[in-house]
């Protein structure tokens, strides 16, 4: 990278977006820090690695396994099969998932909760190493959860910017290479312009800080399924949200070749009278993405948000019936884990079967990413919806 000679800006400098004066101050405080290029064309110390990481996650036939449930949420999962919410049980469950042989054929990244990032198998092997051996990128949830947004219409905002830079740096040291931050937008509550702006701005700030510390940010503004609105309304809101997100990402000088998106699919609200077919969902979702996502973004990894395992797979499959300008794949939690939990039931003798169940779902979604999935032969359990009104993650 050519280095740029920086001269002192004029006293009344109004650099584009005010970025330069901040940049100048930082450089004068840290004279040894050299940047590859002036910030606006988005180069940084980790540029190449970020691009490689994002590419690896967005590889054909693969997607993300999201197992970053907070301890409280993981507790709910364990409770559903009669297990106590202890560290041992959480470790046992994640071990089952992360040591599944051949998982890397279908999974390119795994999002972990902080506790899990530092855990090992009962045999003493770091989880992070298990993942690396399968060519699966370790990821880490870095947000600190949703809290009420004052002045809004009962909406939320996502916390987590304080100390984020040093957290990211620590996680990078521990082996994480991508991060995830989930904020939400509620259609029944508006959404208000305030909530949308805050969601987009928070994501943009998080993304810039992540990249600065070597982690590919997954950008997740989840438009909740709750509501009785029609699919056209979802399209409207999604277009607005993503327009704001991309503008603020650009303002924060985020490098698009080194991010991934985690959108919700464009569907009718959960309580809407008519369900939409996978083809309709694919049509609306792809229309939205084509209007909002620049081709520099390597991958779009959908969240399942309460859809059944089979629904989530069918919808993804419908989206991959012809080539897209970006990798279109999955980042599923419930839609990959539901059958696994029900098979395991917490019993060691069920581990093999449970791991096989995970592979079945992972493979199904892998085929869906390639546009080659068929729902014939799927178990009834996999078709059960998992929507919960007012679901807190």
């Amino acid at each position: 990278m050519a280095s740029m000679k920086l001269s002192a800006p004029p006293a009344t400098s109004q650099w584009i977006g005010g970025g330069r004066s901040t940049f100048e101050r930082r450089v004068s405080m840290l004279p040894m820090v050299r940047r590859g290029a002036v910030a606006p064309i988005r180069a940084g110390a980790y540029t190449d690695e970020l691009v490689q990481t994002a590419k690896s996650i967005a590889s054909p036939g693969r997607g993300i396994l999201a197992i970053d449930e907070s301890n409280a949420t993981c507790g709910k999962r364990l409770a559903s099969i009669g297990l106590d919410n202890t560290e041992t049980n959480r470790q046992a469950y994640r071990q089952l998932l992360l040591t599944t042989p051949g998982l890397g054929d279908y999974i390119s990244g795994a999002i972990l909760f902080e506790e899990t990032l530092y855990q090992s198998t009962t045999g003493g092997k770091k989880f992070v190493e298990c993942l690396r051996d399968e060519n699966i990128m370790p990821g880490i949830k870095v947000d600190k959860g949703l809290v009420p947004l004052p002045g809004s219409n009962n909406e939320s905002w996502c916390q987590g910017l304080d100390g984020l830079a040093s957290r990211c740096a620590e996680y990078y040291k521990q082996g994480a290479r991508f991060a995830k931050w989930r904020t939400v937008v509620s259609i029944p509550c508006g959404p208000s312009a305030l909530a949308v702006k805050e969601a987009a701005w928070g994501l943009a700030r998080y993304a810039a800080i992540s990249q600065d510390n070597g982690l590919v940010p997954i950008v997740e503004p989840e438009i909740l399924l709750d509501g009785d609105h029609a699919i056209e309304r979802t399209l409207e809101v999604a277009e607005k949200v993503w327009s704001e997100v991309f503008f603020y990402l650009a303002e924060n000088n985020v490098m698009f070749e080194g991010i991934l998106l985690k959108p919700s699919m464009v569907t009718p609200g959960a309580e809407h009278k008519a369900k939409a077919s996978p083809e309709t969902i694919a049509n609306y979702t792809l229309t939205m993405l084509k209007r909002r996502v620049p081709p520099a973004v390597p991958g779009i990894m959908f969240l399942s948000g309460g859809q059944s395992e089979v629904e989530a797979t069918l919808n993804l499959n419908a989206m991959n019936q012809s080539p897209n300008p970006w990798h279109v794949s999955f980042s599923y939690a419930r839609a990959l884990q539901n059958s696994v939990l029900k098979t395991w039931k917490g019993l060691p003798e069920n581990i093999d079967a449970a791991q096989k169940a995970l592979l079945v779902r992972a493979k199904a979604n892998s085929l869906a990413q390639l546009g080659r999935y068929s729902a014939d032969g799927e178990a009834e359990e996999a078709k059960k919806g998992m929507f919960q009104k007012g679901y807190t993650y």
Partner: protein
Amino acid sequence: MSAFIGKYAEELIKTAKYIATPGKGILAADESTGTIGKRLASINVENIESNRQALRQLLFTTPEALTYLSGVILFEETLYQKTTDGKPFVDVLLENNVIPGIKVDKGVVELAGTNGETTTQGFDSLGSRCQQYYKAGARFAKWRAVLKIGVIEPSALAIEENARGLARYAMICQENGLVPIVEPEVLTDGNHDVKKCAAVTEVVLAAVYKALNDHHVLLEGTLLKPNMVTPGSDSPKVAAEVIAEYTVTALRRTVPPAVPGIVFLSGGQSEEEATQNLNAMNKLEVLKPWTLSFSFGRALQQSTIKKWCGKTENVPAAQQAFLARCKANSKATLGKYIGGEGGDAAASESLHVKGYKY
């Protein structure tokens, strides 16, 4: 509301897609009366209507040239002119599958309180003007916003004002059946390097698309006319491949796939340079979901005008020159151009004019 789907939506989408046909591009022949006067003056030809008509007739009746064009941008006067045989120019174009377009802006004015930055005029009666132009056969429009690179330019004000102007213009066009070509030109004037131009171009395009989205513009029914990313006119030149990389990177970071085509302005590059750069972009092996083509004024007409010199006996030679440039640029849209095919010394002449007023 998401993107505005009005009564012309289907037609807009179809027109935009057609204009973006690979292998074709746009002839920008929409020089205002004042500007075309400068061209004519350069060959000692008087700036009267019959001469302006003669030049445009020369271009539009060049045998075979129209095969390489999907659209021609006209100035208002030209939209209503005819050939010497009495055939409306619009008909000449339509019969050859070339879509007539119309410049609808009324030039730039300075933004007070800035260092010579500008905004573009033309909103008054824009809606009804578009309707008139539609009736006359136009199906796309063009509006040029201008930004410059300086120590503190482009300012946030200039970017916001020009982006908003483009969005408003685009929406009014779509309401009245015209595909808006969105043109945020970042001038090459200056001694900045290619990285600086890239940075500015990316910031400007991000702001433009934000504004278009806020105004509910139907992106599938628009085209983008950006500058290529190059070093400043006072800086050392770089290879076409470098220009191609920076330009395509900037576009990949800012232009959603819904936009069917990107038609570059030539902005003072020589005919040959402009073609080489376009060619290099189309050779790049990276995913480009929109077509990359041309909307050239000077870079298609320079040699032609020099050969014509206003004399009837020169028309065939002038038309040859024009056809050669059309062919060359058509090949460039397919990444198949081999340098130097398109002409002679005139083709390599820089067309940069400092502080160029269009």
